[in-house]
């Protein structure tokens, strides 16, 4: 089997090289040709942004917020995204909206940041259906919208089958794990990092059951809130684009010694809660 694949690979490489030699140029007319282009994604966004943000000016690349994602995703159902907020301006940021233009439900998540939460970095993983701009838009207390965008080459993420089988996923659904990390040594702030992992299939509604061939109903974490005591750190309104077993890593400013508390509500109305004592050493 393996040697067969290599054999095929060699053959196609040879064919390509031959084509290049014969034509003088190497042109790919392969699968990439039919993917969504930057301009196509932009066109979708232009038709969409009014629904998401209303008719307000959007400031691009001001440095207040920044998004990072791989240019080409290895797994379209698990695309890592990092959002950075300028620490000097983080206190004035009210919400962060993440949009994936080409996903059928393009608003991936809206995060609300708690007052003085000190969140300047948030990482999670998303499904990407086709080549698309990934965007984050920060709304400030004064109502300004600041956007950062990055183009990701990935496809099929929304309908990709779950990694775990459904029985396994349901048995562990709602279980949470929290990891705490001490602030980096060079950091001057008291920010600490948390990583929250929630077991949940987070079915997008676009995945097909491999046995019955029917679409599996959407079933995902719709609302999530993470607080220290009764101070909100961040909350999320999530959609179909957050990957299976939602995972969030973020920094925050510690206030006192209260526990870290998490509540998650899914689209079936199931409520999952957990809490952990603050570990100031991060160990």
């Amino acid at each position, binding site marked *: 089997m393996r040697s067969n694949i290599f054999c095929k690979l060699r053959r196609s490489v040879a064919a390509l090289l031959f084509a290049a030699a*014969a034509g003088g140029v190497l042109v790919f*007319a392969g*699968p990439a040709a*039919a993917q969504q282009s930057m301009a196509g994604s932009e066109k979708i966004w232009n038709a969409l942004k009014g629904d998401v943000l209303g008719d307000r000016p959007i400031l691009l690349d001001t440095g207040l917020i920044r998004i990072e994602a791989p240019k080409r995703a290895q797994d379209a159902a698990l695309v890592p995204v990092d959002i950075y907020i300028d620490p000097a301006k983080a206190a004035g940021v009210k919400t962060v909206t993440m949009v994936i233009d080409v996903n*059928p439900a393009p608003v991936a998540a809206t995060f609300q940041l708690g007052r003085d939460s000190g969140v300047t970095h948030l990482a999670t993983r998303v499904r990407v259906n086709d080549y698309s701009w990934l965007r984050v838009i920060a709304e400030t207390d004064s109502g300004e919208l600041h956007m950062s965008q990055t183009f990701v080459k990935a496809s*099929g993420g929304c309908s990709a089958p779950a990694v775990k089988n459904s029985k396994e996923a349901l048995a562990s659904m709602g279980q949470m794990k929290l990891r705490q990390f001490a602030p980096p040594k060079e950091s001057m702030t008291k920010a600490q990092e948390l990583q929250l992992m929630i077991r949940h299939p987070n079915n997008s*509604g676009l995945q097909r059951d491999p046995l019955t*061939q*029917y679409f599996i109903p959407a079933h995902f974490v719709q609302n999530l809130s993470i607080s220290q005591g009764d101070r909100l750190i961040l909350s999320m309104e999530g959609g*179909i684009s957050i990957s299976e077993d939602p995972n969030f890593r973020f920094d925050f400013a510690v206030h006192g010694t209260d526990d870290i508390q998490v509540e998650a509500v899914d689209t079936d109305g199931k409520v999952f809660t957990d809490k952990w004592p603050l570990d100031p050493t991060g160990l």
Partner: protein
Amino acid sequence: MPLAAAILAFGAPAWAEGVQEPADYRMEEYKAPVPDTLKGAKVIGTKEAEALWREKKAVFFDVMPDTPKPANLPAGTIWKDKVREDIPDSIWLANVGYGAIPEETAQYFRKSLEAGTASDKSKPILFYCMTNCWMSWNAAKRAVEWGYSSVIWYPPGADGWERAGLPLEENRPYSTGD
């Protein structure tokens, strides 16, 4: 014509050569190089497809998949149906080209074929989706198995058609009225 230019013009990737026609339906990885043949069907390129289309000598079926909006999304979810542009006057039958299809989808496919051909199984019917897409191969194979005697497969699909400078038109999934 240099070979690379020839490859570009016909929209067939260099690595497509040597893909063997499988005995059964393609069950996964539908976006991949396709074979040159389909047993029981005629395989054509853009020139022939254009002639059939201009002379209205075949019924064109687009089988590009589509994902219906899940029933239970939270209120207020912004949902955008995929805009499909395909060969004008095509009947778009979404999701009939998977390797295995549920009974409802099979019924929908049968009914749509009957409607499109006025129940004449000898009427030429053409299947396509996009370049390097097995869905149209599967759908055409299914039609052959159901006894249609003049099945045509057009592998370049809507994007191959467009690359040849031919028009596309926005379409919606066909409804049998059920």
